[in-house]
Every structure is written in structure tokens, then in C-alpha cells.
């Protein structure tokens, strides 16, 4: 992960009410928010943050920018992200919910070609406790420590973080990848990032039964991840209709994915699976003591 508390961060869409709240929360947590972007409002100061009309103007003023946090209306997210990429940014966190999936496909083709990391959309983003926040994690649930969290949920991530924090198991990084069907970076990308992260000793992976990428992650972990991993999959008892749309029925039929086998997939490769959030701290301690 190419991010530190000194990484330069911009917020695209800063002058909307929600975006401003997010930017200020990030800043007050210590994140180095160097600029906000809002076309037509360039030149202003917004709660102490300089505003530019274009990303390239911000780059011209403050130099290379490391991350953009995008909080734009859903149909403007693709353009905002492409603008950030065209201005040389290599890491983008999209908070906005409701980005059309085919906009994400376009964005991901470009992101892959330019080696840009996309987190989200519809995500709480990245938090490194006591260091910086890129997104909307409520900071009070976190405390620094050696546990990395990777999750497809937002609020459930907070629950897991809070269980760890209550048990005095601090976190190195917590990343919420986004709750939408098509998200920018996958479990696998982040398993790799946290496997290489010096501050992370153990990874907690929080999945959902409705999701589709967890079992892919299970085999990946067994093959390439050296650090211990604990999995927690919500919805294993809940009677959830996994194929609620015809489109997902077709997809599952053609690619032969079985959502039922998720927990088995982890257990097969000896990854401990928590039954509930409050199980996680003891599983973590067991793994760390080994």
C-alpha cells in the first residue's frame, strides 16, 4: 500500500454538503487533505481547504497527488475518476453509491491499463487508525494495532473493528471494498497488499453469502498469502435468496459458481471461520499465538 499520513489527498466534489462533512472528518483525523475539486468554484477556500475547478490545477499547485476521494453524484463518478487518472493519480476511493455498473467496467479498463487502484464505489474506504482516513469509517471504532480488515460491507466492518478494539486487538488497516456488485479492487488485490504490509500481522476477511468473490479469495489465500487469515461470512444462517435476479442466475449457471460452498471453501484450506463478530477476537488470538 503506497499510502502514509503524508500522502496528498484531494476530495472531488468537495462543495456538496455530504462531501464537505467527509472532507472535514478526514482532515480532523489527520489526513493530509491538500485540495478540493469543484468545477466553477476554483480559487475559493472551503473550510480551510483550497478549491480548484480541475484536478490538473490542484496538481499544478501542490505537485503529485496520491489519492482522490470521490464524493460526486453517481452519474458523474466515471468522469471524475477519469479526470483524476488523466492527472496522474494512482489511487482513487469512490464513496458514492449507485454508480452504474457499465461505468465501472469502463473505469476499470482504464484503471488496469494505467495501474490505478480503485476502492469502491459505495464503500467506507480505507482507515489506518491514528494515521489517516480515506472515506467514511467512524474513527471511534478503531485503534492502532497489527490486524488488517478487508470487507465488502460498511457497517459490518465497523462491528468487526469494534469487537477487535474492545478486545485490545488494534488494526493496521481496515478497508471496505464497497457493497456494489461491481467494485474496483477485489479481496485478492487487498490480500496481496496486506500480505506485503509491514504493519499487518493477521488479516480478517469479512464476506457475505450474497457475494461472489469470497471463495475465489479462499483458494488464493491458501496458495499465496503467508500471513494468518481469519474469515467471517455473514448470512450463513439467514434464509437469503441468493439468485434473486435472472441475470445472476444466468451468470452463476454459466460460470458454475456455487455460493453455498463459501464456508466449506475456507475450511478446506484451513482458514478459521468465525460464526459471529464476537468470535473473531479469540480466533485472532489463537492464530497469533501459533
Amino acid at each position, binding site marked *: 500500500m503506497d499510502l502514509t499520513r503524508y500522502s496528498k489527498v484531494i476530495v472531488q466534489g468537495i462543495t456538496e*454538503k*455530504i462531501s464537505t*462533512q*467527509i472532507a472535514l472528518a478526514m482532515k480532523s483525523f489527520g489526513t493530509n487533505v491538500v485540495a478540493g475539486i469543484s468545477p466553477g468554484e476554483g480559487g475559493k477556500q472551503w473550510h480551510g481547504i483550497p478549491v480548484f475547478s480541475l484536478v490538473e490545477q490542484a496538481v499544478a499547485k501542490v505537485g503529485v497527488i496520491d489519492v482522490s476521494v470521490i464524493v460526486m453524484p453517481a*452519474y458523474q463518478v466515471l468522469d471524475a475518476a477519469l479526470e483524476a487518472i488523466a492527472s496522474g493519480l494512482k489511487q482513487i476511493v469512490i464513496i458514492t*453509491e*449507485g*454508480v*452504474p*455498473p*457499465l461505468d465501472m*467496467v469502463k473505469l*476499470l*479498463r482504464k484503471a488496469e491499463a494505467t495501474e490505478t487502484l480503485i476502492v469502491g464505489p459505495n464503500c467506507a474506504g480505507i482507515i489506518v487508525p491514528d494515521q489517516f482516513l480515506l472515506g*467514511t469509517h*467512524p474513527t*471511534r*471504532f478503531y485503534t492502532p494495532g497489527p490486524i488488517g480488515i478487508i*470487507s*465488502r*460491507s*460498511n*457497517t*459490518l*466492518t*465497523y*462491528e468487526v473493528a*469494534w469487537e477487535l478494539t474492545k478486545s485490545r486487538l488494534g488494526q493496521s488497516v481496515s478497508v471496505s471494498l464497497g*457493497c456494489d*456488485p*461491481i467494485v474496483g479492487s477485489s479481496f485478492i488485490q487487498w490480500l496481496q497488499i496486506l500480505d506485503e504490509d509491514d504493519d499487518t500481522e493477521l488479516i480478517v476477511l*469479512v464476506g*457475505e*453469502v*450474497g457475494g*461472489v*468473490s469470497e471463495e*475465489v479469495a479462499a483458494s488464493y489465500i491458501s496458495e499465496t498469502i503467508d500471513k494468518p487469515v481469519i474469515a467471517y461470512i*455473514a*448470512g*450463513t*444462517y*439467514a*434464509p*437469503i*435468496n441468493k439468485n*434473486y*435476479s*435472472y*441475470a445472476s442466475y*444466468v*451468470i452463476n*449457471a*454459466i*460460470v458454475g*459458481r456455487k455460493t453455498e460452498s463459501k464456508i466449506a471453501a475456507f475450511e478446506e484450506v484451513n482458514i478459521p471461520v468465525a*460464526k*459471529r*463478530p*464476537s468470535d473473531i477476537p479469540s480466533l485472532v488470538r489463537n492464530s497469533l499465538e501459533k
Partner: protein
Amino acid sequence: MDLLEYQAKALFSEMGIPVLPSQKIDYPKDLKRLKIPYPIVLKSQVHTEERNSLGGIKFVENTIDAVAAAQTIFNLPIKDKYPVVLLAEAKYNADQELYLAVVLDPIVRRPLIIASKQGGIDTKTAMKSMQKVVVDQEFSPFYARRLMVKIGLEGKLIESVSYIVEKMYQLFLEKDLDLIEINPLGISPKGEVMALDGKVSVNNYALGRHPDLGSIAGKNISNNYAIKQKELKEIDHSSLSVMSNINVASSETLISDYRLKFTELQGNIGILCNGEGLTMATVDMVIQAQGKPANFLNIKLGDYLELKDRYQMFAALDLITQKENVKVVLINVIGIVETSDELITIVYEYLNKFKSIYQARIRFVFRLLGGKISKARERLLGLPVEVIENLEDAVSKAVSLSE
């Protein structure tokens, strides 16, 4: 949002995908003004797979038979749904039937084009011999040709069927679809192709930029979710009457939203959470503690997402509490700080206003983490609600209250 066959075919036709001459039938008597020559096929316009095996498709040779068949189909529920419209279509003499579809793969995060030589009524058979091509980069017709070669087409059919896939992909992109399927694509003895049946699912997130599809969506919802809407109206009258404040347009989103997230079960604990993962986790925990969920509902509440519609929250509480079997309602909300005051007020108003109705029957457990819990306790004092911060405790409490 799924389109009905006749709506899908209208899009096919606009795009230049060949479809048979057809006519929409709103009433059996419309068949007397039929412009297509007999024999024709009459098809129930419902959203289900088993339309044919359940009697929703009939071939007829003349007007008398057609009117009779139409009456039968209009009165035939298919998986609980009555058709509002039938489609009358010319017959087609297909030599061969293919399956074609474009769909988005959430793992590879690219559209797939898929095809099978075993097209026809039975999708499951088609699935067995299905081939796929990932549209890795921007679409170009060669992706379609690759697929045609994979399923073993030869000669001129490679290009003529590729052309149909190309047009399907174009629709997929232009209209932001989740799925477009032609099954079967009929191939005549002369090698001409014809889309005999089709499915189109529109992505809900993208509906806002396709006003044409939005208006179709509105129509389908008012037709097909009629039962659901009726239920909601009953709630209106019996309890909060909030739904009547919501105009048609917003109630649609509301309902289609609930349709995805609201699940009804046979137990006695209603569950309302913010976030899908949290909802599933909470339901898991209730079941693990031997509790029986009556339903569960995920409502979006976050620190930065405005609680913009109080009515929506009221409606959500209504949905959870409506059924006779509900004894306990567990509200599990986490991570809202800025908006917790407002949520507390809503819960306060909801419980207060309807104390008389619910006090006897339903107890509430309100789990609030990261909000102002002491303020909640203070404000909700004297109402039939327990305010608890720890999730395990809240679940235990809800389960014990339900016993």
C-alpha cells in the same frame, strides 16, 4: 428491472434485431382487429421461466380460437402472476434454435457474451452446452465471431449471428442493461435469423439516465407488483398512512428497493438494520440464539447519508411491524453519529404516536452503536423499547422477549 417480452422486442426492433410481426393484446376482443395473418401464437406477458410448461403459450388458427385462448391465458396465473398483456405473434419455421445473451460478470468485472447451440424453451439444457467470451476490452465484432466459432457455427451463419450479438451488445451498453437474452434465436432453413423470445433486465442504478426505460419500469411495477402494492396500501390504512404521502414515482423505488432487501419469514422477531452485511450478521445471530426472525429489512442509514426521508424510515418500521406474528422488533443501527439525533427522534415519534396500538403486542430492542446512546435511553424512557449498545446483549434480549 425486468422488461416483458413485448417491451424487449420493441427494443430489439429499434436496434435492427429482426423480430416477427406482432401485436400487443390488452383485451381478448383486440384479437378481432388482428393485423397478423393466422396461424399465430399467443403468449402470456409475465416474468417467469416456466411460462410454456404452465400453459402460458398457445398456438391458434383463427379468431374464435384466439379469443378463447386469450381469455384462458388472461385468467391463468403463472407463479401467482396474472398477465396484464398478451403478445400475438406470427409463427416462425425455425430449423435450428440458438441461445444468445450478454451479461455482466461481477468477478471478472467485464461483460460476457454467451451462446449455446441448444437454444429453446429449456434454459437449463441450453446452459449445459454454453460457451462464453469475456469482452475484456471495448467491444468489437470479433468478440462475437470468436463466440460463434466456439459454439461451432460455420459459413455465413458466423457473420449473421455475430451481427445479432453485436446489436445485443450495443443495446446492453446504450441502455445500461444487467442482461439481454435472446432464446431462442430461430434460424430458418435459408439461414435467416429471428429473435423468437427475449429478455431484457435494466440496471436499477442507471434507470435515472434512461427516461424511456424508466417509464416502462413504472408501468411494469404498477402491473406486476400489484399484490405488493396492495399489501402496502393495507398498511397505510391500518397504521401509519405514510404511504399515501408518497407519490407514485417514489413509491416505486421504495417498493423495488424493499423487494430486494425485505424478506418475510415465519418467526416472530422483526429485524431492521443499516447495511446488508450487518443485516445478515444480525439475522444469523438471532437464529444462532434460537430466535425466529419474522422478517428482515436493510435500510440505508449512515453518517453522511442524509436521513432525507423520514417517511421512508416510518415506512420501514411499518413494514417490520405490520404482521400479526411479530412480537419483538430488533433495530440494529451502527456508525451513525451526525444523524443519530434524528433517528432517535423518529423512533421516539413512531413509538409514541402508536403506543396505544403496539404497546400490548410488540416490544422493541434498539441497538445503537456509535450514536448518542445515553441520549437515546433518556429520550425513549417510558416507551416499549430497550436501548442496548452491545450487539450480543441486544440479540439475547430480543430473543428472550420473543419467547
